[in-house]
């Protein structure tokens, strides 16, 4: 039964991508919405099973609690953004000639579904080699999506992205090879890099290759996570991609790459003990958080602002894992989900703001609270959620991470985390307040002709859904999710 769900999950988004290539654009949008919602339902159906045992099928698929959490994040965003895209693409088409618009729509939907597919596939893979391949596929597909806008800036962002991310993944491939070398010492030449096998023999693995593989994996996959100093592609790609894609890049792609690091973390802690892997993650996490907090303070472009906030949150994830205490790891798992919902909402709101004001510059956007009766408050709440305000999910997750830091006696690191998150809060909230409440200049400027009106209901509905998810995660996470997180924490701490 569950096998059918897994197969369906691996087939539905891909099929939707292929269908989008051949059917008329309007139908492609409908197919994508259906595929998105169906995929989310399929992931939800997987959760109870994954919360109780690890699902392994035909030796290639392996879904445990950790995978299920990352698939949940992708599933929710895929569904939400698929709905949002109906409104967004409709707006994009107004500025294009019919032939160009048709080309744009077909490419967008085909690639968008393929992108979601690759992000579902990656956490399902048992083999570290297939995991690498899936993540490489996410790169090439999303690079084409970044280039889709066909502007000079988009071409620049796409080139930087594909080159830097591919070079990073080159290092990750080297990590994969050293992981194979380490495993083959114990398991023989026909070892196929299966995670289930290598974790069983974890404590006997030769330390040097494992250490090297872990470092290469953190640096290599870390390029796609956006860890300092290999984050440089991230703000460009996030700001130049079509907004629905930005939401998926930030909420889901970065998380899936972080998932790959977590797998190497599991192997490394089994072979080397916890000291070295945690120190390495702490160093990368603090550096990323520091950089992001500083860039957030003085940012002029709304989508770049949100991109740096993603760097910040990925840094928080790395720091949370480095604390290692169960409550911190539970916070990390919850943070993946809450960040996906919050950042998805923030990007979707930013997309509406950009459509409304015709500019990504923060200074060009003002009085949004009056002009956008739904998006205004929802965007503001999403930013507050990103700043870890209660009662939203990120408040709960960051609270758990900090509590875990103190319970693990990492007082200095936990204090640095609090200070830098507060700094990031300043930058984010200053920008959001300026967009929302600075009075509209009624005599001139881009807002002059604007009147209070939402561009599209399609773009509001998914934000309401995201808001509800944030509330649920913050106030009372469902029991099954708590069970899933508990099991994921046990797995990250070395239980089979």
């Amino acid at each position, binding site marked *: 039964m569950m096998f059918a769900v897994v197969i369906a999950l691996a087939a539905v988004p891909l099929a939707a991508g292929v269908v989008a290539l051949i059917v008329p654009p309007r139908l492609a949008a409908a197919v994508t919405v259906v595929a998105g919602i169906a995929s989310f339902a399929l992931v939800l159906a997987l959760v109870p099973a994954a919360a109780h045992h690890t699902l392994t099928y035909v030796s290639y698929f392996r879904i445990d609690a950790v995978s299920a959490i990352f698939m949940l994040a992708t599933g929710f965003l895929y569904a939400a953004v698929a709905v949002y895209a109906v409104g967004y693409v409709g707006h994009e088409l107004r500025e294009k000639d019919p032939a160009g618009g048709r080309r744009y729509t077909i490419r967008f939907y085909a690639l968008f579904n393929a992108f979601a597919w690759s992000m579902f596939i990656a956490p399902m893979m048992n083999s570290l080699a297939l995991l690498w391949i899936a993540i490489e596929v996410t790169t090439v597909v999303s690079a084409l999506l970044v280039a889709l806008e066909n502007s000079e800036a988009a071409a620049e962002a796409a080139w930087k992205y594909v080159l830097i991310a591919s070079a990073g993944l080159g290092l990750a491939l080297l990590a994969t090879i*050293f992981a194979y070398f380490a495993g083959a010492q114990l398991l023989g030449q026909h070892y196929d890099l299966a995670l289930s096998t290598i974790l069983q023999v974890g404590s006997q693995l030769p330390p040097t290759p494992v250490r090297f593989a872990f470092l290469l994996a953190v640096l290599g996959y870390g390029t796609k996570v956006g860890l300092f100093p290999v984050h440089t592609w991230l703000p460009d790609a996030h700001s130049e991609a079509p907004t629905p894609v930005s939401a998926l890049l930030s909420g889901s792609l970065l998380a899936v790459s972080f998932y790959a690091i977590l797998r190497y973390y599991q192997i490394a802690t089994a072979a080397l003990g916890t000291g070295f892997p945690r120190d390495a993650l702490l160093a990368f996490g603090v550096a990323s958080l520091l950089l992001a907090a500083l860039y957030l303070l003085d940012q002029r472009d709304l989508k770049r602002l949100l991109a740096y906030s993603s760097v910040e949150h990925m840094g928080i994830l790395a720091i949370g894992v480095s604390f290692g205490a169960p409550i911190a790891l539970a916070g990390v798992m919850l943070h993946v989900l809450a960040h996906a919902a919050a950042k998805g909402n923030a990007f979707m709101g930013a997309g509406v703001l950009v459509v409304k004001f015709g500019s990504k510059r923060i200074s060009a956007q003002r009085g949004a609270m009056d002009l956008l009766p739904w998006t205004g408050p929802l965007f503001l709440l999403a930013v507050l959620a990103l700043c870890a305000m209660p009662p939203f999910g990120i408040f709960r997750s960051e609270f758990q991470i900090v509590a875990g830091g103190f319970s693990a006696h990492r007082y200095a690191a936990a204090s640095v985390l609090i200070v830098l998150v507060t700094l990031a809060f300043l930058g984010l909230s200053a920008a959001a307040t300026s967009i929302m409440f600075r009075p509209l200049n009624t005599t001139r400027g881009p807002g002059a002709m604007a009147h209070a009106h939402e561009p599209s209901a399609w773009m509001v509905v998914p934000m309401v859904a995201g808001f509800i998810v944030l509330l649920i995660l913050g106030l009372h996470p469902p029991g099954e999710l708590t069970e899933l997180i508990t099991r994921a924490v046990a797995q990250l701490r070395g239980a089979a």
Partner: protein
Amino acid sequence: MGTVQAPGVYTGAADVIAALMLLLEFGMLRQALIRDQIRLYATQSALISVLAVVIAADRGIGDLYALAALSAALKVVAVPYLVRKLLGRTGRDEAAGVAGSYTIGVANSVLGSIALAAIGFFCFNSLGIHSADAPGTALAIAGGMVLVAFGLMIVRRDVASQAIGFFSLENAISLAALVVAAGLPLILETAFLFDLLVAVVVFGMLIRAHHTRSDSLSTADLTKLRG
């Protein structure tokens, strides 16, 4: 005590091939014309296949013959053909944008890359990864090649050289894989190769998009996004 044994045929061959590949990497770094860079890349890829055959014969790993053939078909024939075809439209006199694309002088690039190669060589060597299957020197040279490939992507300021730099980075990793992971199951190796092919197509599409837009292969003007 202290007798130095002559390397066996396999170890010797692996070391020589690795050294030749590193030299070709320097060739790509130095080369001014795209079509010559592609030729050097194809030669480097051919050497990988030769090494795979040597290892297959020495260790009796039958799968590696198939891998050598597949790798040659893709990296010696298909990838160079695709890159040439995708770059074909950008015209033959595009060499100018590529030839002068050094961020630092040619001599300095080469000197810097020699330093990089040395760092990579000694780092990988000091890992002490030696086993019956793994001739340490070839692995260390692969480490040097990885860094030189990164250097190539950094010092050349044109999309074609940067792409070739990435493809040759993949060659360096293949070399490391052949040396330390010769037994990697064929299906995974095949998947890696097809993945490379997809990457090549996407690189080609983005290069073409860049060229149609700016009428040049140079990346010197890709500086608008910052902050």
